[in-house]
């Protein structure tokens, strides 16, 4: 898939991703109407399915509100690429099936409006303007399995259903 890059800085917090004044609802489509509006008033009107958010360190810091990844996902964004993620957001994104990738190099080289092609399975990102391809570090196997199931709920359903109650592999990479 490919889409336009929306570029942001470090420490994008959950209050700007979805301001608390809209937390009196929890349906993803309603939340998406206000995604990023305090820092990026044009975002909601112009974001297209397949677009990519590219941000610096500690993306999603602040509140535990799952409304944040839900709003981003429902707005059509296909993937968030950041130098690093705040830990609760990291878990929430994986649990709710919002694709995320950690890759500081992409963040450094990408400009607002660049066209990016993301291949989640291969973990690669290609910048169509600069013709550069980047490889991201793979997630630990346990987290990969959650993602492959489509999130924590289907993953847990499968396990509760008696299917393979495997133990957790110790993996590298940024945990929760």
């Amino acid at each position, binding site marked *: 898939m490919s889409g336009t890059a929306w570029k942001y800085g470090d*420490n994008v917090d959950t209050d700007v991703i979805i301001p608390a004044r809209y937390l009196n609802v929890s349906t993803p489509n309603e939340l998406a109407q206000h995604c990023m509006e305090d820092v990026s008033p044009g975002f909601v009107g112009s974001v297209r399915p397949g677009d990519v958010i590219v941000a610096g360190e500690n993306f999603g810091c602040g509140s535990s509100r799952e409304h944040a990844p839900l709003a981003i996902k429902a707005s059509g964004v296909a993937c968030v690429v950041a130098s690093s993620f705040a830990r*609760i957001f990291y*878990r929430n994104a994986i649990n709710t099936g919002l694709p995320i990738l950690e890759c500081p190099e992409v963040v450094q080289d990408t400009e607002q409006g660049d066209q990016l092609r993301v291949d989640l399975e291969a973990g690669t990102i290609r910048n169509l303007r600069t013709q550069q391809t980047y490889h991201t570090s793979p997630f*630990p196997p*346990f987290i990969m399995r959650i993602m492959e199931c489509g999130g*924590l*709920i289907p993953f847990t359903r499968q396990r509760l259903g008696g299917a393979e109650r495997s133990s*957790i592999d110790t993996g590298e990479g940024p945990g929760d």
Partner: protein
Amino acid sequence: MPHTIAEKILADHLKDSGRDAPSEPERELWPGDLVEVAVDVVLANDVTAPIAIREFANLGVDRVFDPSRVVMVADHFVPNKDIKSAEQCRVMREFARSQELVHYYDVGRMGIEHVLLPEQGLVVSGDVVVGADSHTCTYGAVGAFATGMGSTDIAVAMATGQIWMRVPETIQVVYHGELRPWVGGKDLILFTIGQIGVSGALYKALEFSGPAMEGLSMAGRFTMSNMAIEAGAKVGLFQTDEMTCSYLDARAARPYVKYKADSAATYSQVLEIDVGLVEPQVAFPYSPDNARPVGEADDVVIDQVVIGSCTNGRLEDLRVAAEVMKGHQVHSNVRCIVIPGTQRVYTEALREGLLEVFVEAGAAVSTPTCGPCLGGHMGVLAAGERAVSTTNRNFRGRMGHPDSEVYLAGPAVAAASAVKGRITGPEEVLLQAR
């Protein structure tokens, strides 16, 4: 092998080790290990519970793992600010009733969750607590491995009594020296976050230790653990000492296990802070790590002051604020809002005459609620307005309009600023004749 508090608590909660037999069988954990642990308490509030309940239903499970260990508190948008928040609260209330949750708190009995749970003795030393609220880390002050998560994680924890975690590395912060007058837990944690930054402890545990912590009140410790997340940390732990035990013995509903770190434990970083050098702090917008001594904020004129929240809504905080405000008037250009953290804090503040001090000074006193802390209700800011607040976040738009500003401070600075109409320390007010 020597271990940090975080490693020890998680090892004792490995799902095979059994809750009743801590440390048996002994298995060691190291930072980076991905583990599944048993949880002692699961928490959600009126904002996060509705999504957790929806996902719980999607799991196809009928009952929560233990109705006495799933706690729900209506605190964010209550008393309900509008129809939509009333509907969200109803979802939670109906779930709590149908699941027969023992600890469900609604208007008139509730408090802000992170003041309420320790006060009610629901979280104790050695617990693993997960909450669908980022400030769940507050309970590190009583020696609990407590951390915030999203609603989906909480749904799974409610159903299974277990959660997956990555064992964090630990940063030790050692505090030495004598506290200056009017310096409390809030000033120390703002100063610390100012040193390490809002991502300084990302994916890590913080351990607060050192001689200066021994003299800090439980309220001060709660304030510090509460803001561990503001440095990106997963938990902010204190060792369980005499002060913790006397706090817990007066209220704990369950037996507890004491933990302290081994002296040879491995830390990813050790930070030494001489508290004698720390002045009352103010964190400027729009980041909690933008902390400066109060003297540098002298010319900042304000419109509102909020005293309360899960950070500073305890009785000790209200006492400090009342001590500064007593006999003075809130500045004519300032709206001052005081919110006791729980019903009990409210009653005790009433008995001690603190609420009278606030009301006579021209402040508004509210029933417990998160309200203004997250820009929900009870004191939302207009464009260009500035507030001094004892809350924990000053992100853009946190308390209202994206062009409003929040300055974070402790209760002494907040009360003094309310009187003066601009940011100032308590000395200036106390020197002035009443």
